[in-house]
């Protein structure tokens, strides 16, 4: 059950705006349709009263927006769901914004819907959807209401939630949860169990749909470079025309390498993909490998933590030792 409602957040935000504690609020705004809730910056209580929404589609992770918003005058209020707070910490670790200029409110979460998931459940005449206790109620134009169990129909990133614990906040609304184990590496293990050919076919099928809209990169809280290598003329890969439908695999593989050890597994890449490519699986494979090879590591769990791949310690083994030791 969600203990925090739109009104709770609205009251809190209005009070902070009124007191001058914060100058802006990063929140969710209603879109064209009930299911395309988008992130927005609100500067007054009136604006919020009018457009602010907090419902089952309020899934967008705000942490990346803080880079831009904290560059402005005054403090920003941000709402952090558990997975957002990991990205928040990771960005702090990478010195991407000034913590002093943020007022973070932690909110509990037990899974958020997204447009494509609901669309898939009601392909014809989707109007809106809401939560009613343990059920998801989908209102449709032609078939009336469709009632389904909420938890079973969550998008993949929430069904395999890594944590219900908000790891960074100034103030927590509602009750904070714990790190959970919801078998998030099961799908990776399935992919690993496939034959090489089958796995290749799987990714070819998925990634060939890519239209290189860059939405995954633009939403990713780990992709915060001043200038992305894919936009950099010096890198030699910018503006390169693809020679076949599967060539965009390189973009996704390079991106997965670039965020390896820094990805907080928030799943935004898959959420925003207009082609419904399960991009998070690539990153999760890296997380799985890092955990197995270097011990469990969760990016963003702790501010200032060093990812095993980008850490130098004087007690690191010499290359010769690693060779002797074998794979471990």
């Amino acid at each position, binding site marked *: 059950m969600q203990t925090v409602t739109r009104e709770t957040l609205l009251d809190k935000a209005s009070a902070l705006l009124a007191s001058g504690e914060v100058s802006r609020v990063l929140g969710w705004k209603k879109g064209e349709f009930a299911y395309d809730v988008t992130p927005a910056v609100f500067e007054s209580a009136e604006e919020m009263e009018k457009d602010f929404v907090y419902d089952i589609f309020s899934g967008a992770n705000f942490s990346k927006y803080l880079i831009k918003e904290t*560059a402005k005058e005054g403090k920003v209020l941000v709402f952090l769901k558990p997975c957002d707070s990991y990205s928040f910490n990771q960005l702090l*670790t*990478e*010195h*991407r914004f000034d913590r002093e200029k943020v007022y973070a409110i932690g909110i509990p979460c037990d899974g958020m819907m997204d447009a494509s998931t609901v669309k898939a459940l009601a392909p014809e005449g989707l109007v809106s959807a809401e939560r009613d206790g343990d059920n998801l109620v989908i209102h449709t134009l032609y078939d009336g209401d469709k009632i389904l169990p909420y938890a079973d129909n969550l998008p993949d990133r929430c069904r395999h939630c890594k944590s219900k614990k908000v790891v960074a906040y100034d103030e927590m609304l509602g009750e904070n949860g714990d790190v959970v184990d919801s078998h998030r590496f099961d799908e990776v293990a399935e992919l690993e169990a496939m034959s090489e050919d089958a796995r290749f076919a799987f990714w070819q099928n998925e990634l060939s749909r890519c239209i290189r809209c860059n939405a995954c990169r633009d939403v990713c809280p780990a992709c*915060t*470079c*001043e*200038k*992305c*290598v894919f936009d*950099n003329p*010096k*890198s*030699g890969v910018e503006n390169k025309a693809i020679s076949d439908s599967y060539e965009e695999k390189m973009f996704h593989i390079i991106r997965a390498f*670039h*965020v390896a050890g*820094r990805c907080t597994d928030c799943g935004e890449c898959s959420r925003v993909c207009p082609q419904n490519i399960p991009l998070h699986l690539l990153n999760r494979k890296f997380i799985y490998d890092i955990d197995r090879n270097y011990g469990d590591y969760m990016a963003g769990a702790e501010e200032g933590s*060093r990812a095993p*791949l*980008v*850490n*130098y310690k*004087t*007690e690191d083994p*010499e290359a*010769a030792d690693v060779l*002797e030791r074998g794979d471990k």
Partner: protein
Amino acid sequence: MQRIGVFVCWCGSNIAATVDVHAVAEAAKLEPGVVFSTDYQYMCSQAGQNMIIDAVKEHKLTGLVICSCSPRMHEATFRKTAANAGINPYMVEIANIREQCSWVHKDMPTGTEKAIILAKAAIAKVHLNTPLTPGESKVTKRALVIGGGIAGIQTALDIADAGYPVDIVEKEPTIGGKMAQLDKTFPTLDCAACILTPKMVDAAQNENIRIISYAKVEEVGGFVGNFHVKIRKKARFVNEDVCTGCGLCTEKCPQKKVPNAFNLNMDNHRAIYIPFAQAVPKVAVIDPDYCNMLKNGKCGVCAKVCTAGAIDYKQEDQIIEEDYGAIVAATGYNPISVEKFDEFAYSQSKDVITSLEFERLTNAAGPTAGKLLRPSDGEHPHTIVFVQCVGSRCASCAGKGKEYCSKICCMYTAKHAMLVRDKYPDTEVYVFYIDVRTPGKNFDEFYRRAVEEYGVHYIKGMVGKVTPENGKLKVQASDLLADRQLHIDADLVVLAAAIEPDKSARPLATMLTASMDTNDFFTEAHPKLRPVESPTAGIFLSGACQGPKDIPETVSQASAAAAKVIGLLSKNTLKGNPCVAQSDELMCNGCSSCANVCPYGAITYVNKEFRMPDRTTKVRRVASVNPAVCQGCGACTVACPSGAMDLNGFKNNQIMAEVDAICK
């Protein structure tokens, strides 16, 4: 567009036997930008170098590709040649067609094909080379020697003699090391103390030498010419400047049951002690694990008897920070623990001892005042068995012993056997060996004397088992030459334990970023031509920390290391390596990934103001590399998520160009 000259070396037949050098030169001519290409018998010779200089002038070359041996051999040579020809030394690329091509291939077509590819890769790189200029840094004219054994002492004495200040850091309360524990030295049999202690005194009295004993190196920063070192001097609870070394406290201390490490725990000393009579510095030290005053505040006898008032129970560890231009590792060796070799019953019987323990048992300052007595009952031993190669040359006993030969055991065992027979003619002495290895001046003669004049029984074969029984040691062994089993009832068994680097060497190597081999011996920069230098600039090697050595060899190497240090310290400035990392500030995110992986601490962050396209300014956190500290390892360039970090001379696009050329 560069105007590139390609020079293919035959290296006599080293390259030319497996690579068609002429074909390589011809193929190179077809590459874009190559305006001259030739081959020659020895490119590194004066004639070869002149050929390069002439070609640069005649063809107005801007970049050079030398297809030859490894850049480790002659890169510096050809860079100098380029400079002599008037072009920037960093416009030279070496295509290694010897070590990485002709030496690993057997047939000409394969070797030639690969050599052409390597040449093409180097040509592709030169197209993107830019002139580089090394920076300069000052040299701190002070050396640090880590380890105060005979190696460290000799190195320090020689450096000090040349007029440079030098610090010796010794982990024990006194310098002297292993040699101080020895009795006689082969092959001349002069007493170790008699030749060592004058050197110890010299070191103590030399005004250029500072001895920091009972201390260890905790942190090393900086780079060649400018090391910054943090040394922890442990509290000895005795004021070093005040103590006169009279030794009264060491007689009055009521705590008598402290194992005497100098005598390998074969007897005891007091809780306050001076390790041995000729210790330098001759200052008492309190063992805090045994001192009643330090443990429970009840005693204070030493403070009462000390007329100099040197005792200070409140003394704390002291941190010394100092800058050095050069560092010498002289951390020495230790015998391995023989307890793992159960068959020799070392842990079952007191009468099975190691050779170093034997040295103490025969030393006049040892636990038995030099009389050879059995440790178990103090009786005179009649039958003595020496076992050689305990843990040495032991490929099959992985985890227990060492694969290498410990080098010194054959000689000291011959010495022990000879001395026993000389002093106690009523003894029977057996030596079991795999091989007797005695190369060295007067060494084999020495061993022959033990066999021929002193009647030591040398038996080729190993001891299989030692069993303590009724006060005797039943030794079961094989005599390989006679092809039979031997059973000897021995009174004393002496094990020539393998030697290994001191345990402090591995963490020290990490601090120094000096490389080590799998046995934890320091690696030299070149096994033949640079044996006293570590591959890390400014780090030198002295004594057994580099490999097993006897005293004469150790002393020669110590002096050689000193010569290298003096050569370095005599320079006022050092030219740096311009192939260092550089951050493109416009792309840098300031994420710290590079600083986190930098092993040298060369990267810091600064907040810098940038003009934005819309004429506003923005302050951003960006990485800044200290070129004097950066060693050009390139770890940061791969860690950087945005590709802002790049390595001069090895830029990402240069390496990509090489890969592209190879894959084309």
